[in-house]
């Protein structure tokens, strides 16, 4: 106890467990798929539009699931609304400097946007009768506006959890400022992976899938660089990962979730099987990444 790598070693673990790991995963998917769908809508071609709709179809259920997981994790779930309304004054509760406070609002607003886009996608697919819903889909000013604002909130939902962990006094979490960046990039990689996986299941062959696939390889490479940067920025606290958690991080995230898919990608064998394997590996790696980060900091 006489020498510790950081003053963060004297705080207590908040006991954020599996519910939070799953929340980080599905929250990342919600924000990431929406963000990608908006990119495809804005910069892709008209024939890629089904791919964007797929993104909206994933985002909304994921954000609902996220809200549910977060609520269940509270010590007093029925007081969820205390995050939004001050319970004794009925005024809005908002703290710009507390990521959990801003994040609660962001989740709510993002939820509304993802619902609108979800309904818009249903209308465009002729699965829902809602004349105004057409205007939510491109082309058009309204659809662009919804996409840009919703996409920004999606980015926030995907990344704020990493910043939230940094704005504490726990070892690892608060010993690097890079977790938010890691979560943002990882949200993009797992979201692209899930979209590829589902697009392949539906046997879509539009060129957008290939573009998404190539982008995912770039993003996974970036994620690898960011993860290494996280490790370096930890400094002496990196010692905490010289443990079983570190092994899991190395094999589960770096080897299985990053290097293997990148290697498969660069072998450039076309064919459905390959895209699926890579995407599945990236998803597994993204899940283990969150698991290691949540649990390893609490065992210290």
């Amino acid at each position, binding site marked *: 106890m006489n020498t510790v790598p950081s003053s963060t070693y004297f705080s207590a673990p908040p006991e954020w467990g599996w519910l939070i790991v799953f929340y980080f995963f599905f929250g990342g998917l919600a924000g990431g798929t929406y963000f990608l769908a908006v990119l495809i809508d804005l910069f892709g071609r008209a024939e890629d539009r089904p791919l964007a709709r797929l993104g909206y179809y994933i985002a909304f259920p994921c954000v609902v699931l996220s809200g549910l997981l977060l609520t269940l994790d509270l010590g*007093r779930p029925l007081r969820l609304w205390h995050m939004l309304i001050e319970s004794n004054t009925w005024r809005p509760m908002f703290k710009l400097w507390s990521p959990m406070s801003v994040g609660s609002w962001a989740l709510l607003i993002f939820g509304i946007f993802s619902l609108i886009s979800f309904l818009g996608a249903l209308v465009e697919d002729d699965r829902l009768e809602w004349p105004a819903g057409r205007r939510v889909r491109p082309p058009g000013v309204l659809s662009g506006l919804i996409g840009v604002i919703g996409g920004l909130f999606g980015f926030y939902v995907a990344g704020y959890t990493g910043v939230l962990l940094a704005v504490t*006094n726990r070892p690892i979490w608060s010993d690097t400022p890079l977790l938010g960046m890691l979560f943002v990039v990882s949200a993009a990689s797992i979201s692209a992976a899930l979209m590829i996986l589902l697009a392949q299941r539906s046997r879509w062959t539009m*060129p957008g899938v290939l573009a998404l696939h*190539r982008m995912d390889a770039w993003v996974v490479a970036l994620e690898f660089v960011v993860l290494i940067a996280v490790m370096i920025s930890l400094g002496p606290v990196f010692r905490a990962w010289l443990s079983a958690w570190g092994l899991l991080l190395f094999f589960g995230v770096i080897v299985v979730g990053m290097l293997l898919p990148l290697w498969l990608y660069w072998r450039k064998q*076309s064919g459905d099987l390959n895209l699926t394997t890579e995407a599945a590996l990236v998803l597994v790696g993204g899940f283990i990444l969150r698991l290691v980060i949540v649990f390893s900091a609490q065992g210290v």
Partner: protein
Amino acid sequence: MAEPMGFYTDTTVCIGCKACEVACKEWNQLPSTNGGLNTLSGDSYDNTRRLDGIHWRHVKFIEQFTDDRKDGRWLLMSDVCKHCVNAPCLEVCPTGAIIRTEFDTVVIQSDTCNGCRDCIAACPFGVIEVNPASGTAQKCTLCYDRLQGGMEPACSKACPTQSIQFGTIRDLRNRAQKRVEQLHQTGEKRAYLYGADEKMLGGLNSFYLLVDKPEVYGLPPDPKMPTRNLKSGSWFSVFGALAVGLMGIINFRNRGAGEHDQEERR
């Protein structure tokens, strides 16, 4: 606002009797662990182990003995919430449950807290935990209810050696400074005050007189505010999003010839 109030704990006169722990539990009606069926901690005379939702005072027993046990000393310290002037727990709490009182102390309002546990991760001293009875985060209130009634906190009232002293911060700092000088004169040169000035989190309204490094007592040498990472963390996230966005735009905009080759092969 009334004058800032707090604790000054002189660890050199603590005898480890745990009267403070008991008085705290009695006044605040906190349950015992395991319904009273305690297990031995294996750590000296400690049996409550740490501060948590049902232990708002905790006496630490630190044995410093040579291997042959011919020479040594006990360090005893009654730990409690530090009632930080810039309180990390208060800073992050998303429900506004944690407030600063008119006595400049930090109190969690149990009827507002929803048990999100952000404050637990934020407190640099590991003070807060969930009380299973309420499902909310709880810690020392510096006996807010007693203070409002003009009484002193239960623990300092019960302390038989004046190791825990209660009073105005100004008064306590004077007293503590005199005690440090006295100890220095009598040869205990290691004595110093922990958290008695603004340098540490704006000042700890519950500060300590120690005779060894803070780490030895399980105290952080350099506690910091959680928001130190807010700006940098947010900017890095924005860079991350920009990089990802750029990758998306490039890949969806310029689908090069390579792509079409591949498509044809398929």
